[in-house]
């Protein structure tokens, strides 16, 4: 008998029963909530006179609408203030722990879950946010849900789901200098398409993945959804365990670590696990990848020519043509040299401490180009504090970056951090959709954090491998 995947094992451990629809009722081990997608769910609960079933397995923070400049209350934006007040009331009434700005633990939900030790291998984790796939980096089964499903989870601690297929994506070899996790995931999406993962959960494996730090694995799992896969994961290993051991939770509860580790080991995919599909990518051949279009699948190596729409599969040609018109790029050109107006270093994809360290290594001793406004939005208050202690804030500010408070910020432009007009943005975030960063004429170029730093100082998309890295950091 062949073995199982992590997905099979975690699924089986959490399956409560089969529903009349044929779906499985799956137990939820951690429910993360934020201010944008939860208020309607609490409203639905109230209408039905239901209580939160497992408040102790639920954790809240505020990230999407929170201002990253002036955070004094009431917020300047009435709508934001109303959403924050609603969340405060809901979590208070239900007895849900809240990492609010006063706690010093606030941040992007997919940054705070891991750093607080809430995210663990073998848990089922849901959140009303598609980038919940991030938590798969720890070997959790984690996926985004809609508001009606949030209601289900609040009311029952469970969710109705159909089991998916598993595709193993093996990234072999050693990533070349200057190539990081973000480049790997952009390349995966470029090859498999934005809908290639529909119906699949992605298991990321192979030497290039195993040698990544946890933050790199999070960047990869984070963008699974951009490839159409609702969840993606990496099997837990020593890198995972060492990272977890350093979290406050496990430092305070070392006995929990010892108690849980056998479970974590038990849910790893077996060597003889069967996969529904296997894709192999040679990591040693990659170069920094940037997007030229308006979907995350429209990426290209920074020195490679932008493809002609007619050379793409028929179903991609129209979208590509529209995207090239919007971005004002021509087939045959490279993205190297594409002028930018804004540099955004932030988001649940790339705003953790090592991301900021890597970018700082490029920024150190250089200045932001005079035509560029550049900002750093740390992923959480804890990340911000750690970065400040290391002197990274100083490095960024000395170079002319704006250093802001934690939040989703310009990744989706729900607070005041937005593109204006047709500004072009070098962004470490995850989506380059038209209008995503707050202006419908805005142009987003996705890239890794070091590439964002390089673009900020050069005023154009720049191959970071051509710049010398300062000593403040180890390389990717």
């Amino acid at each position, binding site marked *: 008998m062949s073995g199982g995947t992590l997905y099979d094992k975690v699924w089986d451990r959490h399956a409560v029963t089969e529903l009349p629809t044929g779906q499985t009722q799956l137990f939820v081990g951690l429910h993360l909530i934020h201010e944008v997608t939860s208020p309607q769910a609490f409203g639905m609960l109230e209408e039905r006179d*239901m209580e939160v*079933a497992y408040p102790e397995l639920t954790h809240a923070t505020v990230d999407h609408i929170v201002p990253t400049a002036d955070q004094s209350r009431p917020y300047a934006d009435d709508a934001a203030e109303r*959403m924050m007040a609603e969340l405060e009331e809901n979590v208070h009434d239900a007895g849900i722990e809240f990492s609010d700005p006063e706690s010093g633990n606030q941040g992007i939900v997919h940054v705070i879950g891991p750093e607080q030790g809430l995210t663990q291998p073998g*848990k089922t984790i849901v959140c009303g946010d598609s980038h919940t796939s991030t938590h798969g980096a720890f070997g959790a089964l984690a996926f985004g849900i809609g508001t009606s499903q949030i209601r289900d989870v609040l009311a029952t601690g469970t969710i109705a789901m159909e089991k998916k297929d598993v595709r193993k994506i093996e990234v072999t070899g050693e990533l070349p200098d200057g190539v990081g996790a973000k480049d790997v995931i952009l390349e995966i999406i470029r090859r498999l398409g934005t809908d290639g993962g529909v119906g699949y959960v992605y298991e990321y494996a192979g030497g290039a993945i195993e040698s990544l730090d946890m933050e790199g694995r999070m960047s990869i799992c984070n963008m699974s959804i951009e490839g159409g896969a609702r969840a993606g994961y990496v099997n837990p290993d020593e890198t995972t365990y060492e990272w977890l051991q350093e979290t406050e939770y496990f430092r305070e509860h070392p006995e929990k670590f010892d108690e849980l580790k056998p479970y974590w080991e038990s849910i790893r995919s077996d060597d003889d696990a069967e996969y529904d599909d296997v894709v192999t990518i040679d990591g040693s051949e990659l170069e920094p990848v940037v997007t030229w279009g308006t979907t995350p699948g429209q990426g290209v190596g920074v020195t490679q020519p932008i493809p002609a729409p007619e050379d793409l599969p028929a179903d991609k040609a*129209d979208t590509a043509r529209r995207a090239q018109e919007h971005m004002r790029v021509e087939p045959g050109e490279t993205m190297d040299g594409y002028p930018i107006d804004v540099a955004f270093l932030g988001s649940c994809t790339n705003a953790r401490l090592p991301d900021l360290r890597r970018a700082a290594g490029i920024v150190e001793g250089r200045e932001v180009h005079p035509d560029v406004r550049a900002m750093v939005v740390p992923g959480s208050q804890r990340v911000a504090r750690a970065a400040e202690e290391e002197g990274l804030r100083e490095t960024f500010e000395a170079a002319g970056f704006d250093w802001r408070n934690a939040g989703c910020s310009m990744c989706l*432009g729900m607070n005041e951090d937005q593109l204006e007009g047709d500004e072009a943005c070098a962004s470490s975030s995850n989506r380059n959709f038209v209008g995503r960063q*707050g202006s419908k004429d805005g142009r987003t170029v996705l890239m890794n954090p070091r590439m964002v730093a390089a673009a900020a100082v050069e005023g154009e998309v720049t191959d970071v491998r051509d710049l010398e890295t300062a000593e403040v950091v180890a390389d990717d």
Partner: protein
Amino acid sequence: MTDSDGPAETVERVSGSGIPVRGNDIDTDQIIPARFMKVVTFDGLGQFSFFDQRFDDDDNEKDHPMNEDRFRDASVMVVNANFGCGSSREHAPQALVRWGIDAIIGESFAEIFAGNCLALGVPTVTGDAETVEAIQDWVDEHPDGDIDVDVAAETVTYGDTTVDVTVDDAQRKALVEGVWDTTALMKANAGEVEKTAASLPYVDTA
């Protein structure tokens, strides 16, 4: 049903005139831009459906089927591949439903979007590219013509034509048997849920 809410509705078929919204990879940021999500209820979202595709900076109407009078009463949207990709925001289908959409026919749908539609009782049925484009063309010619989406039989009928489409098994069962509102259904299994929780090493049970 198991709850005081009374029996959930069944959605065996949806009939109404159509509206074609063409293009692959139409993401939820297009369906409802994030700035309209600064709300604590879903009420009133309908007017913001595809807002930036429908209006320019000065609020002048742009070319978009949702701006055309002939499609104003449509209840069946016909789309292409990977519709609803991107964010998990239920605001997207909520906005479409509030605009008047009761069913969507497409080549393919992003998973979270389709799940959100199901939670609202909105079928997302799929056909191949040719089938879908033929329906879109027909709707363009017959904006007042009825499209009949038969969820149980997995067919779409327009004019004299009936074509086979696919409805995901769980979705079909849920809609046809009226069990798409899963809260009450799952709440009834609270005892089993407790047992599962107790079996997990990371859940501290009192």
